[in-house]
């Protein structure tokens, strides 16, 4: 491990770059943003290599007391590490995706993106409750602006909806945090994770945090901001929204709800399972009838995130590790799908599925990558989607077969809406003359999509690279919550064992 304050650098670098962007031309701002995000990617990889999966729970810890009860305390465990990796991986891709698509107020746009990267990374690295809160809520501002300024025709409506929803949750969370600090006497997240709150308090605190995380996730029925936000956001905004912002909810559950309120979490398992089950069936069916590509993928995101909540609240290792992999996988896959949509949106400027068709003819490379990401989205084994969904559902089954039955219908409906989308876009014949002459992926677009494709396959074939860093931390979490773990509904009862072989032998004899 190095002595440099890597986490501070990770957060400060994009912040400084954001500041620099404001004073330069559009072209320079693009390069500054790209350089800063690539540098951050490099730091992220250094962290990954330097991180010791068998070492202390919190690594790269930095501490600096600030005034006013808030402390600059940073540190990451494996769970935060992999989410940081996801963020720094997607950021340069977002900058690349905006390279030509954004032509208004480029310096401000790049600054907003860099500011957001800084805040997102802060969320995963913060070890002080209020520092976390500032990052967590602050991250909304740049996203709010990205949608509101560089978005589509109805961007104002979408950004206000987004902001209202998320604000509702965050206010309740703030109140809960204030109570927790006065109760436990510390703002340190690691200390709070070990603090036992009384059950009466847990119930309310859990609900307050739930309000915030459920919106971020998003869970049914507080998901309706997501389709609008995605539809209106520019491509890179959608990528980061799906890729990183939606992970804040899952991260919140795993960092706060489960370890801080284990008993309440167990108590609310039925609530979470029912909402998640509804989400999978409901949003998958809604995705089936969408005519707007981005909306379809946005709804599919809600369904996928329900696998995360199922897995997290299964209270077992497969469920939680599966949920983590679903988060990482979804970050890659839905990010890639939004890019894929963006590629053709940039050419034809419509999100209507009906305007395309037959792209396999004129865009074979595009069709190939789109197929790969579609298959990852439906959880085909060999892709990242499978590993996560499989583990999460397996974990869910150990708790409740009913929940697993409902959740597993997602693999049927998911295949239906994704492949139908693929059919309407890539197969058949072009339904507009413009679609028939669109050019295949440019080398810039290949550079954006190919790394994600590689990541999707890597995570699908050798997920150990991503499971290893989180293994010990999931173990610690399980130690913390297992006292409250709900009993499964299986209740296997041994019967009188029959002879091992040849049950047909007596029948065959007559």
């Amino acid at each position: 491990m190095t002595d440099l304050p890597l986490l501070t650098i990770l957060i400060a670098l994009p912040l400084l770059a954001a500041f620099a962007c404001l004073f330069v031309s559009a072209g320079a701002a693009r390069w500054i943003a790209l350089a800063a995000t690539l540098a951050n990617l490099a730091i992220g990889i250094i962290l990954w290599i330097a991180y010791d999966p068998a070492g202390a729970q919190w690594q790269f810890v930095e501490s600096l007391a600030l005034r006013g009860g808030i402390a600059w305390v940073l540190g990451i465990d494996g769970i935060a590490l992999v989410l940081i990796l996801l963020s720094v991986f997607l950021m340069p891709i977002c900058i690349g995706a905006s390279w030509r698509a954004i032509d208004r107020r480029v310096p401000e746009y790049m600054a907003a993106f860099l500011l957001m990267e800084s805040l997102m990374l802060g969320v995963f690295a913060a070890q002080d409750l209020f520092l976390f809160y500032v990052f967590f809520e602050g991250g909304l501002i740049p996203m709010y602006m990205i949608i509101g300024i560089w978005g589509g025709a109805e961007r104002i409506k979408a950004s206000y909806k987004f902001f209202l929803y998320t604000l509702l949750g965050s206010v309740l969370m703030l109140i809960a945090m204030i109570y927790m600090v006065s109760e436990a006497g510390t703002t340190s997240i690691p200390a709070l994770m070990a603090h036992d709150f009384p059950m009466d308090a847990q119930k309310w605190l859990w609900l307050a945090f739930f309000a915030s995380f459920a919106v971020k996730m998003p869970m049914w029925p507080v998901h309706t901001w997501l389709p609008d936000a995605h539809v209106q956001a520019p491509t890179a905004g959608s990528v980061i929204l799906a890729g990183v912002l939606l992970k804040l909810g899952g991260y919140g559950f795993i960092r706060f709800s489960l370890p801080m309120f284990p008993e309440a979490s167990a108590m609310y398992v039925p609530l979470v399972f029912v909402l998640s089950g509804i989400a999978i069936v409901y949003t998958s069916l809604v995705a089936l009838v969408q005519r707007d590509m981005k909306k379809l993928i946005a709804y599919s995101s809600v369904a996928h995130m329900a696998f995360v909540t199922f897995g997290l609240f299964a209270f077992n290792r497969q469920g939680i590790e599966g949920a983590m992999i679903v988060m990482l996988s979804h970050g890659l896959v839905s990010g890639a799908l939004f890019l894929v949509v963006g590629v053709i949106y940039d050419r034809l400027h419509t999100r209507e599925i009906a305007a395309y068709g037959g792209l396999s003819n004129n865009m074979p490379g595009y069709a190939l990558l789109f197929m790969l990401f579609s298959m990852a989205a439906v959880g085909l084994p060999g892709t990242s989607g499978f590993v996560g969904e499989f583990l999460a559902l397996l974990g869910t089954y150990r708790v409740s077969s009913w929940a697993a039955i409902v959740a597993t219908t997602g693999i049927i409906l998911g295949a239906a809406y994704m492949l139908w989308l693929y059919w309407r876009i890539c197969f058949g014949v072009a339904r507009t003359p413009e679609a028939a002459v669109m050019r295949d992926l440019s080398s810039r677009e290949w550079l954006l999509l190919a790394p994600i494709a590689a990541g999707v396959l890597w995570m699908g074939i050798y997920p150990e690279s991503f499971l290893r860093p989180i293994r010990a931390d999931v173990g610690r979490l399980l130690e913390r919550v297992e006292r409250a773990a709900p009993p499964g509904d299986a209740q296997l009862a041994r019967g009188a064992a029959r002879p091992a072989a040849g049950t047909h032998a007596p029948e065959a004899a007559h």
Partner: protein
Amino acid sequence: MEPLIVIVFAPLLAALIAGLFGRWIGATAAKAITTGALFLGAALSWPIFLSYIAGGAQSQVVPVLEWINSGDLRVAWELRVDTLTAVMLVVVTTVSSLVHLYSWGYMAQDPGQPRFFAYLSLFSFAMLMLVTADNLVQMFFGWEGVGLASYLLIGFWYHKPSANAAALKAFVVNRIGDFGFSLGIFGTFLVFGTLSIPAILEAAPQMAGSTIGFAGMRVDTMTVLCLLLFVGAMGKSAQLGLHTWLPDAMEGPTPVSALIHAATMVTAGVFMVCRLSPMFETSETALATVVYVGAATAFVAATIGTAQNDIKRVIAYSTMSQLGYMFFAAGVGAYGAAMFHLFTHAFFKALLFLGAGSVIHAMHHEQDMRFYGALRKEIPFTFWVMVIGTLAITGVGIAGIGFAGYHSKDAILESAWASGSVHGVIAFWLGAIAALLTSFYSWRLIFLTFFGAPRWAASEHIQHGLHGDPDHPDEEHGDSSNDPHMPPTGTGGYHPHESPLTMLVPIGLLALGAIASGFLFHDYFLDSAVFWHGSIAFDEHLAHAMHGVPAWVKYSATIAMLVGLAIAWHNYIRRPSAAAGFVRQFSGIHAFVKNKWYFDELYDTIFVRPSLWLGRLFWKGGDEGTIDRFGPHGAAYAVGVGNRLTYRLQSGYVYSYALVMLLGLVGAASWAIWWAR
């Protein structure tokens, strides 16, 4: 390097090269690489198989890579070979390599050849992963991989809406099966704490009779696990209920139908039940279900097959029916017979499909048998191999010597009778009736295609062929009309031509298999526990009892075959008008059978339409009409309440800091947006 690694991964490598670089290396190189990889695999697979035939070969597991490790769940990429796998290895690599070769001729005019061969090799890789799986997750990987390849190949001619619809349907219906398979895997892990197949099979007998909670019920553990897994098998093997995708899958090019939808992929379900046979042996309910589903499928598919006019659809329903036989054989405990029928079926059914492809090729992509007739003089080689295939599927043979199907199908019927159970006897009778129908539709196919007077003149495809219509896509089309009347006779001046050698050689080799595979190997598959070496739950008592069935049971299949042949001969050779008369007389039954028992219409009404309707309801009525209407307003209200609460609670720096920040957030963002406008 282990030959097994080469067998499995060479097709993957070839598929990647052909698929990703096909445009640069050219079609011929892509074809050569993929075909070569499969022939290499076949050359390495046969010695493995023969070493098990010779006896003494041990099962082995070749580790490849770690895969998923999560707590007590440990799953690795690893290749297992034992007798059961060895059988599948030769089936897959042999048929696949011959189909690759055949496609050189069949697909010669197609612009997408590198893509086609890449898909074929990708399929072969996935199928080989499936059959070499040592754990259920890798089996599932192969299972889904073949599903993907099947999807891509059914939709190979992607500008055809019917092909796209068929591909989507195949994938989604298979996913319904996978839903069961997945839950079965989850349940198996819950019960056994492992997903390693040998470990599960070893522990299974101890779990017999135990009960488990499932979906609020208290049920027999092994029954529920086996039934869930069997749902997966039903999907992949197109068993009744989940079968609707298979006939539609004929939209794919004919070599695909031969390889995937006849010889290999669709038999994966049978393979799965045999692989897990010690597990299924612990639940009589599950086995009885397998028997009933298999027997019902054998019967229903055979009835539908009698009324189809599209040559490929006849063979498709025939496949579905034969899969039914394999399942009820497995269900009565005759796993050896099930695997034997899988083995022989692979040869003669691939032969029939490739032969049909040769006919279609000769007839300029006309697939409707009503436009055939009198082809035996025009394409004599194809005629003779199709006859061999028909002799094999109908089970012609006498006194222990016969074509492939004679050995395997008779063994199945005899086992069903010999099992002595009620469901075994029911399966026997349904199987015997299905054998009659099989004989009828198989000979009907031969008579309509190769005998009688030529009826080509009215065919649109032939017309296109004659006039060299450049706009007409060079591909297959299905049964276009429901007209029971035969088209007028006449050649229209068209002369069918025999297919090129690249097509005839594979067909010829498969014909050898259809003739000899039953006779050569029946002792091993049916009677030898030594051969199986514990890789399936081989029941020696049943194998023995099978030979002791009454003579009329032994001859039932032969009698059924002769009756079917006689009816077909009467209706299509002796009095060609008789069939139309029958259709007129029993138009209700004919329509019911011809329309596939209306399964598609039923599913459309109870699943597809309601799903879309619900989707629109949830979207317009739920999200927009309810949640949005009350949601954002409610959120705004809550923000107000939250702010007031925070005022009261504030008692230090940090609280006012947070509140100011919150207000600042709103202000700054609003300002930014308004200003930016």
